[in-house]
C-alpha cells in the first residue's frame, strides 16, 4: 500500500465517533469507487458521516439535498434562460448573449465533477425523490459523465468523487439502485457507544451527569406508545439544556424528575405519553 493510499484512509473525525465496522465499510467503498448508501433511524449520524469523512480526509464537501419534486437535471446543471433573456433585451451585462455556455450553471453533481480536487458528494435523503430520479442519477454516477443538451457538451468527472448517499427509507429504493451501491444500516448506538458520542460533544462533562442522562435517555426510549423515539441529536441538545440550567442537579434524574422533556419528544402525543409515564414511575 503506497503512502498516498494510506493517507487517504478514513479514520474518523474530531466530532464523530466511528465504529470499526462503519470505518471499514467506508474504506472499502472508497477503494472500490462505489457509492455508499446509508440507512438508519433519523438522528444516528448518517449525514454527519459525510462531514466527518470530509474533515478527516480534507476534501471539500458538496451536499445535494434531495427534494421530492427534484428533477435530475437540477442536480447536474441549470440553463439560466431568464438571465439570458434579460441580457438580450437590456444588454447591460458583460456576458456574451450568443454564447449559451455562459448561462450554464453547474448543479451539485456538476460541481463535484468539475471540481479541481477530489470531493465528497453527499446526496442527502435520496428516498424523497422518485425512483426515476434515483435510477437516472446512478447512471450518471456510474459513467461519471453527463451531457449538457443545450450546448451539446459532455461533462466528465475530473476526479471521481467519494459518494455518500443517505436514506430514511420512506420509500423502497429500486433494485438497480441498490445493486450499484454498497449498503450499510447504522443501528442505534448502544449505551457504551453513546457515552463516547457524548464525550466527543462535551469533553469535560461530569461523570455522574453522563451516567444519569444516558441511563434516563435509554429508559425514555423504552417507554410505551412513543411514536418518534428520541435519538442522538435529541440527547445532545437535552444535555446542552441541562448543562445550561443552573437549577438542575443530576440527583433529580435519579429521583425520576426529568426536566425539558420537550427537547426529547417532538410530537405532542409523545410528549404527553412520556410525561405521564415519567410521573407515574415516580409514584
Amino acid at each position, binding site marked *: 500500500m503506497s503512502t498516498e493510499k494510506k493517507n487517504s484512509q478514513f479514520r474518523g473525525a474530531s466530532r464523530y465517533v466511528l465504529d470499526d465496522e462503519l470505518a471499514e465499510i467506508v474504506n472499502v*467503498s472508497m477503494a472500490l469507487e462505489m457509492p455508499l448508501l446509508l440507512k438508519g433511524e433519523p438522528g444516528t449520524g448518517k449525514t454527519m458521516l459525510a462531514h466527518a469523512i470530509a474533515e478527516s480526509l480534507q476534501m471539500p464537501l458538496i451536499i445535494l439535498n434531495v427534494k421530492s419534486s427534484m428533477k435530475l437535471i437540477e442536480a447536474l446543471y441549470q440553463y439560466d434562460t431568464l438571465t439570458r433573456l434579460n441580457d438580450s433585451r437590456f444588454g447591460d451585462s458583460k456576458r456574451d448573449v450568443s454564447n449559451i455556455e455562459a448561462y450554464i450553471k453547474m448543479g451539485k453533481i456538476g460541481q463535484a465533477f468539475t471540481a479541481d480536487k477530489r470531493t465528497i458528494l453527499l446526496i442527502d435523503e435520496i428516498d424523497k425523490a422518485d425512483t426515476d430520479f434515483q435510477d437516472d442519477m446512478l447512471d450518471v454516477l456510474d459513467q461519471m459523465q453527463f451531457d449538457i443538451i443545450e450546448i451539446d457538451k459532455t461533462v466528465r468527472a475530473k476526479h471521481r468523487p467519494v459518494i455518500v448517499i443517505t436514506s430514511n427509507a*420512506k420509500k423502497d429504493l429500486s433494485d438497480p439502485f441498490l445493486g450499484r451501491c454498497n449498503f*450499510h444500516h447504522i443501528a442505534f448506538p448502544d449505551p457504551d457507544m453513546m457515552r*463516547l458520542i457524548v464525550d466527543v460533544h462535551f469533553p469535560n462533562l461530569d461523570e455522574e451527569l453522563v451516567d444519569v442522562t444516558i441511563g434516563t435517555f435509554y429508559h425514555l426510549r423504552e417507554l410505551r*406508545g412513543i411514536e418518534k423515539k428520541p435519538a442522538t441529536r435529541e440527547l445532545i441538545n437535552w444535555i446542552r439544556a441541562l448543562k445550561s440550567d443552573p437549577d438542575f442537579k443530576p440527583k433529580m434524574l435519579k429521583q425520576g424528575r426529568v426536566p425539558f422533556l420537550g427537547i426529547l419528544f417532538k410530537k405532542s402525543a409523545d410528549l404527553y405519553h412520556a410525561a405521564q409515564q415519567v410521573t407515574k414511575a415516580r409514584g
Partner: protein
Amino acid sequence: MFVDFFYTLRDRGIPVTPTSFLRLQKAMNMGLVHSLDEFYTAARAILVKSERYFDTYDQIFAHHFHGASFEDPTAVELTEIARSLLDEWLKNPEEMADALGIDKETLENMTPEELIQYFLDRLKEQTEAHHGGNKWIGTGGTSPTGHSGIHPGGMRVGGESRNHSAIKVAMERRYRDYSQEGPLTQFQMGEAMKRLRRMAPTGPRDIVNIDKTVYETMRNAGEIEIIFDRRLADRLKVILLIDNGGWSMDPYIDVVQTLFHYASSQFKDLKIYFFHNTIYSRVWSDPQRQFKPEQVDDFIRRDPETRLIIVGDASMAPYELMHPNGAIYIDAKPSGTSIERLRFLAKTFRHCVWLNPMHPREWEYTRTTEIIRQIFPMFELTLDGLEKAVQYLTSTKK
C-alpha cells in the same frame, strides 16, 4: 472463493447478485480484506442491500463459518451456549489452539491471510462432516484478530476494542429487529401501507399543467393560454376493525397501537371501530365499547370499494362464533350468529383482510381461527404479512 457462502445466501432468500459477488472478489484481490471480521463487514456492505436481511445474513454467516445450525427450535439456546463457550475460549487461547489442532504459538503467529486459508481448509472439512454443535468453535478461527486491529493503517475506532470477532457479532443477531419477521415499527408499516393509496384528481383546478399550457399556447398562435389541473389526492377509504377486548389481545397491544397510530395519521378517509373477540350486530367507535355503537348492518351503505381491515387474534370459544346468543356480554341482544355477520362483511367489501398478530404456527390450534380464515384471507401482523395483505388489498382480481 466463498462460492458456497454466496449460494447459501441466495438460497435463504437474500437477493444477492453475481455482480456484487464479483465486486466482493475484487475487494479481496485489492487487499482490502485482511481478516474474517473484515470479511464479515465488507461482504455484508457489498452483498446485502437492506437491513431486513441483516439478520438472515448474520445467521448464515455464523452457520457457514461456524457450524451454528439455524432454524433449529433451540437456536436461541444454542446461540447462548456458543456465546459463553466463545467467551471462555477467548480468555484461554491455549484451549482454543488445542481445539483447532494447532499449538498456541502458531495460532498467534499466523497472519490474517494464513488464518483465512486455515479457516477455508477447515471449512472444506466441515462440509463433509458436520455434526451439529460439537464443532461450533472449532471452525471459528475466532482468531487473534478479534483482540486488536491487526491490519496496519487501520481506523481510529471509538474507544476500546470491542473484542468482538465477526462470528460473535453475527451470533448476537443484532439485526433481529430489522428482519422481516421482527416486530413492526410505524416506519415499516408506513412503507408497506403506502402502497394502498389510490391517487385520484380532486379539489379545485389549481395546478398548472405545463405541457398542456405550452401546447395550447402554440395552438393559440403564441397567445398564452394557461391550463390548470386538479391536484392528486388520496381517495382511499379504509375501515379498520380492531379487537381490543380481553386478555388474549393484551400481548399485541403495542403492535396494534402502532398500526392504529399509523392508520389514523395517514389515511384521510378512515373509520376505526372496536369489537371484542368477534363481531355481532354492533361495533363501537370508542375504545371502551360503550358510548358510540354502530350497527353492522348499516355498513352495507358504505362504498363497496372501501378496504376493510380487521385486526384480531380470532381465537375465542366456538360458541361465541356459532351460537345465535353467543355474545359474551349480558346486554347484547340475540342477533344471529357472529359467523353470519362476518360473512356479511366479507361479502359487502370485496377488498378485505384479517390481520392476526399471532404467529401462523398457532393458527391451526384454534378452531375459530381456522373457521374465520375460510371467510377472510388472513395475514400475520408482521412486515411480511402486512406486505402480503396490502398486495392482496390492491390486487383487482377477487
